[in-house]
């Protein structure tokens, strides 16, 4: 689990959007498993690099309809499996997506992303609109994916969350990577990073 931290406006979300190719770099390049993403089919890339956004974005229709946006041929068994991996019960399938709570809707968005079978998960401040309990549930899920071999890139400006989740920390300041290392290495970080961390 890599946590991308930094003050707001530092470019954390932009970094994730570049990885998912919702943005293209004005200079430099983005590589995924050694390939420049500019040369890859964006639609195929986006299914390999799953993304969960800051605000839950349930689509119109039922939970099943939402999951079928990711895979029109999705069977109920596969849908239930994706829900289960996001800690939602099978009974959710027929519920209108717009009636879910914030935490449930965000887990639906996660399940929807899982349907595409991503190799990496990009989480763009996924808990910023959630209450502490829902936040805890989503953090646990993120942790589990990281532990089962799906690397997670998790953006947050919440330092406590960074400490709870990170194996590795990237600190962005003014659009540049100001620190990159294991959580423990933050103690030796540069003054700019320490100022963000409030430890200077």
């Amino acid at each position: 689990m890599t946590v991308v931290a930094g003050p707001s406006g530092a470019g954390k979300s932009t970094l994730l959007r570049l990885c998912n190719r919702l943005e293209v770099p004005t200079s430099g390049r983005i590589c995924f498993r050694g390939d420049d993403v500019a040369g890859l089919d964006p639609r195929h890339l986006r299914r390999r690099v799953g993304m969960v956004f800051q605000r839950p974005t349930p689509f119109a229709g039922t939970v099943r309809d939402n999951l079928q946006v990711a895979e029109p041929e999705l069977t109920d068994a596969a849908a239930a499996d994706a829900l289960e991996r996001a800690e939602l019960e099978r009974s959710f399938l027929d519920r209108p997506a717009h009636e879910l709570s914030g935490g449930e809707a965000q887990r639906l968005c996660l399940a929807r992303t899982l349907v595409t079978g991503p190799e990496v998960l990009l989480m763009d401040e996924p808990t910023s609109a959630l209450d502490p309990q829902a936040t805890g549930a989503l953090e646990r899920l993120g942790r589990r994916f990281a532990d089962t071999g799906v690397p997670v890139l998790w953006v947050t400006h919440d330092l406590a969350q960074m400490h709870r989740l990170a194996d590795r920390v990237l600190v962005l300041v003014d659009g540049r990577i100001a620190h990159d290392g294991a959580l423990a290495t933050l103690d030796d970080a540069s003054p700019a990073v320490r100022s963000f961390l409030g430890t200077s």
Partner: protein
Amino acid sequence: MSTDISWAGLVGSLVLIAVAIALSMWQRLQLERSIAWASARALVQLLLVGLALRFVLDPDRSLAWAWGWVLLMIAFASLTVARRAREVPSVLPLAIAAFGAAAVVSLGVLFGFGVFPLEARALIPMAGLMVGNSMSATVLVARRVFEELRDKRDEVEARLALGAASADAARPYVRAALRTALIPQIETTKAVGLVFLPGAMTGLILAGVDPLDAVRIQAAVMYLVLGSVATTTAVVALGVSRRLFTADHRLVRISRPAE
């Protein structure tokens, strides 16, 4: 029965304008000037159009004049749409394409199937009904698609992030916009005859045509209008939606209007 209005008769109808002006003065609406100006302007405009139509509709005149008139109407309608949906990118070429497509489809059917004889006196009014009645729906759909894709950016990008092609990601919003634009026209078509007598039919009955003959023409006109609205809105909705995505399936930045 003669339904010609003499010039004296026209002057007689001006009494109705006098009534409106009197009402404005009595209730101090301060609309007297506006009413007088609007009535005078309408008369002058209609006279000019009448003179131009008399020229174009002359049976000895080449049909090319009538087609030129149709092109002018399309150009004017496209400019109107572009002005009323100013915030929508590339709306002028899209409107021209939309009215052009509607002209090909609806006039092609009307004259190709021989519903009306292809002569200036049928071509110009039919093209006018087609363009005039589809203008507001075209504006509505252009603005609606634009606003939907701007305001539902999060949802659209979530769809793109799932690997959807831009056309698929936009489809629910384009569909909603098209329904919004088409439903009023469908309602109008349903209510015709019960709630109001449409202009073409009223005109024909005034001119002494048998009501059943007038109804047949009116029905053809209603179908023409519905077909035209469907064509123009589809072309504009799909065009605007395409214009808002890049070739690599990204939604372009859409700035909000300054408050």
